[in-house]
């Protein structure tokens, strides 16, 4: 099993009364809340944390893309990944990911990911989310009726750009490019592994199965809410005749480890309440633009078991979205807390039940202080991770893991 360390890079100074005085953390969040000096501190602290995770033995480190968002300071995840290529050498670098329809032309993604793969020596995992409505439709003005089609066409351009040796022209519905010939090309051939973060749409499951990509459920509401979605995913895989290789899947889980459960309860309360209280305070007017969800998905949600599984997941999440106190957060399973053995046992159970071979962990969340992040990360790496590493390895091959160069460059000392 793979353990990856995921950073959202939240802004840690949203005011205590943020929910009452601001309508949304996303899209039209008040820019006057930002202090550039604090953002400078955040970026370096967060890069330190990602590098540290690589040092202490996590298999991969992850960054992601959000726009105009108080809980995500990475409108360009590629900039973060580029920084990581220099000061890490061991962990895979998972960019989760480039929201394809937002890059004009899409060859920009092919180029930047190729750069990252080369800079990292073949350690890139290429994530291609469709993107949330907030990011794509409202922050970036993408037409909700055309978003998914644009995304699929952009995907085709990127994949063709990586795998076609000759210069080629692309005469598409949304993109017309006469001379496509990206330089450089990825080190990994034919291309880096492709992971697709999704939120439960049936089209995404079917597409991942068809394309043989990893489906990653990046829910903030933990394993209880995630169970219905992952059940639906595996049911769809079964229907499509795919094997139950757990490495077809990824799942995000918040975790807070300490020597005892009581200690974990005390340590992680404030950052969790910050995240669930302030970071997820999104104005619902941005949640559902017409066309973002296909008619097929709307219909299927009331017509099939698979869809019902997804509907249950959403209902659980929606109901649980009101869980903002620490007790409710823990009870609902948003954050798994406990001693190392308790956490390991729980995560093992979660990964087996959800059949997930790529576990993405949020060990920094909300306004968690740097020392606590290091403590959580170190304790997890030393006492939890070893108990999980062997899971699935005797049964399944991870066909979706990078194949880096054996010999990789090490940055020279500056002086």
């Amino acid at each position, binding site marked *: 099993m793979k353990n990856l360390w995921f950073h959202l890079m939240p802004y840690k100074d949203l005011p205590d009364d943020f929910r009452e005085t601001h309508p949304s953390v996303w899209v039209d969040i008040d820019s006057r809340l930002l202090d550039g000096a604090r953002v400078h501190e955040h970026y370096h602290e967060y890069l330190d944390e990602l590098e540290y995770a690589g040092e202490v033995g996590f298999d991969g480190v992850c960054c992601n893309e959000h726009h105009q968002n108080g809980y995500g300071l990475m409108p360009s995840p590629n900039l973060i990944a580029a920084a990581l290529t220099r000061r890490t050498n061991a962990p895979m670098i998972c960019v989760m990911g480039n929201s394809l329809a937002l890059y004009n032309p899409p060859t920009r993604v092919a180029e930047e990911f190729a750069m990252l793969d080369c800079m990292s020596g073949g350690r890139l995992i290429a994530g291609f989310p469709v993107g949330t409505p907030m990011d794509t*439709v*409202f922050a970036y*003005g993408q*037409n*909700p*009726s*055309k978003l998914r089609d644009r995304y699929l066409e952009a995907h085709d351009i990127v994949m063709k750009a990586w795998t076609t040796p000759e210069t080629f022209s692309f005469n598409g*519905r*949304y993109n017309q490019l006469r001379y496509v010939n990206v330089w450089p090309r990825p080190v990994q051939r034919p291309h880096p592994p492709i992971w697709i973060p999704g939120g439960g749409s049936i089209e995404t499951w079917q597409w991942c199965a068809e394309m043989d990509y990893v489906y990653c459920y990046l829910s903030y509401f933990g394993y209880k809410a995630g169970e219905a979605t992952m059940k639906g995913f595996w049911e769809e895989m079964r229907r499509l005749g795919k094997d139950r290789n757990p490495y077809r899947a990824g799942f995000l889980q918040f975790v807070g480890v300490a020597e005892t459960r009581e200690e974990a309860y005390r340590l992680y309360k404030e950052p969790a309440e910050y995240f669930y209280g302030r970071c997820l305070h999104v*104005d*619902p*007017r*941005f*949640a*559902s*633009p*017409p*066309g973002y969800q296909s*008619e097929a998905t*709307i*219909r299927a949600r*009331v017509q099939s078991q698979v869809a019902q599984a997804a509907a249950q997941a959403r209902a659980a999440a929606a109901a649980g979205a009101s869980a903002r106190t620490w007790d409710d957060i823990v009870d609902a399973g948003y954050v798994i807390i406990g001693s190392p053995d308790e956490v390991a046992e729980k995560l093992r159970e979660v990964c087996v039940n959800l059949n997930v071979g790529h576990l993405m962990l949020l060990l920094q969340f909300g306004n968690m202080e740097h020392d606590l992040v290091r403590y959580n990360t170190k304790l997890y790496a030393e006492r939890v991770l070893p108990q999980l590493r062997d899971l699935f390895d005797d049964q399944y091959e991870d066909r979706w893991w990078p194949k880096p160069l054996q010999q990789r460059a090490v940055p020279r000392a500056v002086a």
Partner: protein
Amino acid sequence: MNSVKSSSVVVAGHPCRVLQAGTGAPVVFFAGVGGLPKWSPFLDALSGTHRVIAPSLPGFPGAVDFRHLDDYHEWVVAALELLEAIGEPSIDLLASSVTGPLAAEVAGLARERVRRLVLVAPFGMYDDVDPTTDIWAQRPGPDVLPALLCDNPEHWKQLWEMPAGEDPVEWGIYLTRAMEAAARYLFPMGNTGIAKRLYRIHQPTLLVNGANDRVIPASYQQRFATRLGGPVVMQTVAAAGHLVDFDQPAELARQINAFLVDQRY
């Protein structure tokens, strides 16, 4: 109520419903946000003086297929082809809200086919200083759109009341689809560039807005008026929101009829 005939025409291979009633000079009506879930009191009032023809634009209730239309230009062509398929050589063209710019473009391009133009709270422009409301960024809930679009939300609810025996999922999709169709050619801000082409409209044009329109600012009526190439009449209807035909059907029909028969133009 005049008896309403329902037929279908084909536009670029896709069927579009056409509702028709009344006798007299033909008027074609393009409905506003959400389209026409059923024959409406406004159309009924207007059919007392005219032969009213209400075709469904692609994606609006009565015409399922619309995702073959990729950009604003293709939508304008579809609107023109809809008129051609209806087959009347000369009509008065009325349009509300989101279909306003399509009607205006067609009036400018097919001058021989469109005798007079009526635009009711048309989309098509955007001003940073006096912005339109974002109809696609609204909180979920059964009362939100009615309160946004109508002065009296009950008028919306009456027209959108689900008929007996209808599948509630499909009924909901009619509205979602119509919102998506409008977004497909208007998103994000409804700025279609029509301001640059209004000069082409030489036909007499009636501009109507509702006094309580919460979507299109009142100032936009003058922006349209100053750019039109022919005679312009401007009216405001009291106790009406964005969808004037929903809120004040009889009054709107009266004003439109008065304009269409006015011999001064």
